[in-house]
């Protein structure tokens, strides 16, 4: 894949301003986010890098409607997520967000096809589960149960499940964290391909700085702040990554 320029769309999908998040852990206050401003644009592939405790996951959770910020505002297109109730956030996740988890979180009693179908059943105009699985290269494993698949395959089922409802944004929290490097690269290739073909805004959290090379933009977090933003001059295709 050749390096592509940042798609030039003016209106951001996500707009966050002055986000703060304070957790109370017993008697200690933990400042997970200390004022984050962020815009995510349509079709963008963003990698969030940072050490443990830097606030990556907190930011992702707030963007995904799983958690509410203590201060500041988040907008998804023209919806303000700040202050929305559980019902509204559920609806938001249902319609617009695809999640990929570190440990796949597939339902063991459903086959690959059914794991995708359980999400497409909820969506307005989803792709067929077979098509989603075909896109992640698992068209021949439709009727396999999670226990019959490798970790990489399970993660690709999870990606198929996330993209099948054609979400506007795909949020991936350490998608390769539980995988060895060659399997991990296969998973990243899938994400890269989905981003390119469907134009889904993709955010990937990782510890692994090497992955940043495949992004349009890399954001470095430390101590709850975005400390650095890098736009790689040339995007490296996932299959050429190394770690």
């Amino acid at each position: 894949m050749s390096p592509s320029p940042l798609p030039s769309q003016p209106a951001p999908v996500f707009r966050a301003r002055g986000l703060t998040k304070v957790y109370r852990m017993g008697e200690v206050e933990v400042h997970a986010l200390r004022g984050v401003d962020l815009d995510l644009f349509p079709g963008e592939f963003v990698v969030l890098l940072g050490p443990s405790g830097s606030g990556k996951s907190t930011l992702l959770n707030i963007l995904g409607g799983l958690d509410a910020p203590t201060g500041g505002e988040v907008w998804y297109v023209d919806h303000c997520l700040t202050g929305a109730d559980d019902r509204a956030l559920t609806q938001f996740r249902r319609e617009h967000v695809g999640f990929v988890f570190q440990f796949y979180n597939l339902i063991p009693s459903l086959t690959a096809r059914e794991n995708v179908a359980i999400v497409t059943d909820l969506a307005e105009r989803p792709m067929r589960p077979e098509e989603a699985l075909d896109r992640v290269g698992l068209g021949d494993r439709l009727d396999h149960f999670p226990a019959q698949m490798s970790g990489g395959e399970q993660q690709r089922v999870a990606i198929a499940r996330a993209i099948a409802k054609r979400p506007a944004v795909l949020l991936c929290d350490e998608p390769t964290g539980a995988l060895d490097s060659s399997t991990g690269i296969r998973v990243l290739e899938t994400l890269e391909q989905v981003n390119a073909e469907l134009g889904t805004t993709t955010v990937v959290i990782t510890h692994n700085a090497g992955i940043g090379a495949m992004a349009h933009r890399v954001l470095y977090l430390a101590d709850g702040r975005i400390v650095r933003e890098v736009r790689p001059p040339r995007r490296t295709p996932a299959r050429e990554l190394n770690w």
Partner: protein
Amino acid sequence: MSMLTRKGLRDLWHVRTQALAIACVIAGGVATLVMSRSTLESLSNTRALFYQEEALADLWAPLKRAPDTLLPRLASVPGVQAAETRLLANATLNVAGFEEPARGDIVSLPLDGGQPLLNRVHLVSGRLPDPDADAEILLGEAFAQAHRLQLGDSLRLILQGHATTMRIVGIGTSPEYVYQSPPGAAFPDFQRFAVLWMNRHAMEKALDMDGAFNNVVFRLRTGAIAEAVASEVDGLLARYGGVGAYGRHEQTSARYLEEELRQLRTMATLFPVIFLGVAAFLVHVVLMRLLSTQREQVGVLKAFGYGNRTLAVHYLGIATWIAAGGALLGIALGTALGSWLAHVYQGIYRFPFLTYRLSLGATALGLAVSFAAACGGALLALRAAAALPPAEAMRAAAPSRFGATILERLGFQRWLSPSARIAIRDLERRPGRASITLAGLAMACAVMTVGRFQGDAIDRMVNVQLSIAQTHDIEVNFVDLAPRGAVFELAALPGVREAEPVRSAPVRLVHGLRSYRTTLEGLPPNARLRRPVDAKLRRVEPQSNDLLLTDYLGTMLDLKAGDLLDIQALDGHRHRREMRVSGFVHEYIGARGYMDLDSLNRQLGDGDVISGVLLGVAPGAEPDVYLRLSRRPRVMGIASRLASVRSFYATMGESMLIFSLVAALLGAVINFGVVYNAARISLSERGRELASLRVLGMTRAEVGGLLLGQLGLLVFLSLPCGLVAGWALCWLMARGFQSELFRVPAVLSTATYAFAAITVLAASGLSALLVYRRISRLDLVAVLKTRE
């Protein structure tokens, strides 16, 4: 406190609601055990004490009339330790303010004014009648209470047609009348049946029995055979109109009480087994789950050097706490319920006192079984954990394997949503657990049906016996056999619409070595007021010279239609006849024979006679008819059919209602225990899966549906199983309860099925709601990071 103990207590606190649910089920089991055993033992002890203190006789011999001089000969029959003669009579009683007549059994007291030797009266208040005062009586406590009669009150007594006013000088009870039912009735009726004690002298005068007796009671020597003594006594009394001596097992009160204790014993076994079985299962699954979440901890502890035995003791400790809590709660509850139940029984069985004691045996058994159930469940769960090497235990368990279910392999997958597939596959992967959950739910449902079984069965008995087979309003019995013309006399009374003759003849039926003392009822052809029916409620007519028998009696005597039966008449000319059994009659109460009246009279050779008349009375005319009947000297007893049914419901109604409520409560406890635990376990096993689905956009309701849908399916499946199991339990109980006194039909009403089903659904719904609330507390964020 060791660290391990501290950990145990905290783990217990962590699963406290589940532990409480299990403890409640254990408590239910222990409570039923303690309640029924304590009641059983208390009643048995009270009975033994009362029989002994008031010297219940061993043998009774009723007869027509014999001179007192026969006593020495009766007393010298081998095996007899003591004999005592007395007079018994039936009377009609009028209580001021009570329109209907009541029947009374009058028993004579010795001439010397003291207590009788046998069947002594336990004085509750007052004194024995003065031997010289003819107008004094001692009244049975049940009747006195039913009419609020007190010492000094008076009572009008019609004996042999002569009315006298008697003054109550004492109130008491007797071991002979612990269970008091009017002659021919199966249930007690304290308002319409009384026991009274009178001076022998006064009775001799009233009955014209000077120096004579019509009843003799015996105490037997230890080791004496009652049947042998009875046959010797029968020989002596034959020419005095003896109708056959009988022992305690044929004495109405003693027999009913024995039967009741037998039923109580059945219940004391059946219910605790169900409860404790379910409790053992619940402890097992909860600990299994606790262990699987603690798999890594077990590995770490083993790696530190804790042995399997120490760990086993640690987890058994958790089970023991639950068992102890449940057992103690159960013992407290059982003690309270038992003392209440014993008092309910005391209202039906008239003991003057009740020595209620907590059954130590049952308490020990309850504790032992609870611990065994809890520890048994825990040990099964522990076996798997102990087998793992520490390193393996510390790793997460491998993902569970699933496959397509039978339904899907059969091609039904098109109709199954992914949620339905999750539910069905999970059930199929753990068929054992699913079927035990199903069994637990079915048992809960069954227990509830059993609570209402008694009421349903009695409704059916009353319906068949009293609305189809016996439709008369009033039954009139004569002092002696009367000419048939008496029917017309009574038919002519104002208000009487129909009158039908009946002859009830005491007989002994003998077939081979089996024999039974009962009555033969002679009915006119096409009788309308008493219509024997078969099992399908079709009318059966006695054929001339042939005999119809209660079906249960047929089985007892090993008879089939067409067999010949030896009939020994116990009164009149005491003929012996061989008769053919032409068919069987289906009856729930009593066991007797039916014949055509004319044939019966021909066979027994006493002329064209009857012993009573059945009357159909115009609405509202009953009190007037009673009044006219009670003035007739030859009328011995008058019974109102509907009044006795009403009275029966008044006596039993309350206790039946409470029984069904208690059973419903116990059933609901089991149901709650099973559903809540199943849902909680499923929530903790599938929490991550469900939280993932929440993250992926499923609403709380959708995820709740996924979690509870499977349970809903089980609850739904359990309903038919529970209703069938309930019916089976009732059938088992009905089998256990049947005797020649009555057969309880194994019937359950639609209302009972509906009640059980609705209570199951409500209890399930409630526990589901409790679990559903926890779904909102699922930690969505943690799911993203953790591996189970």
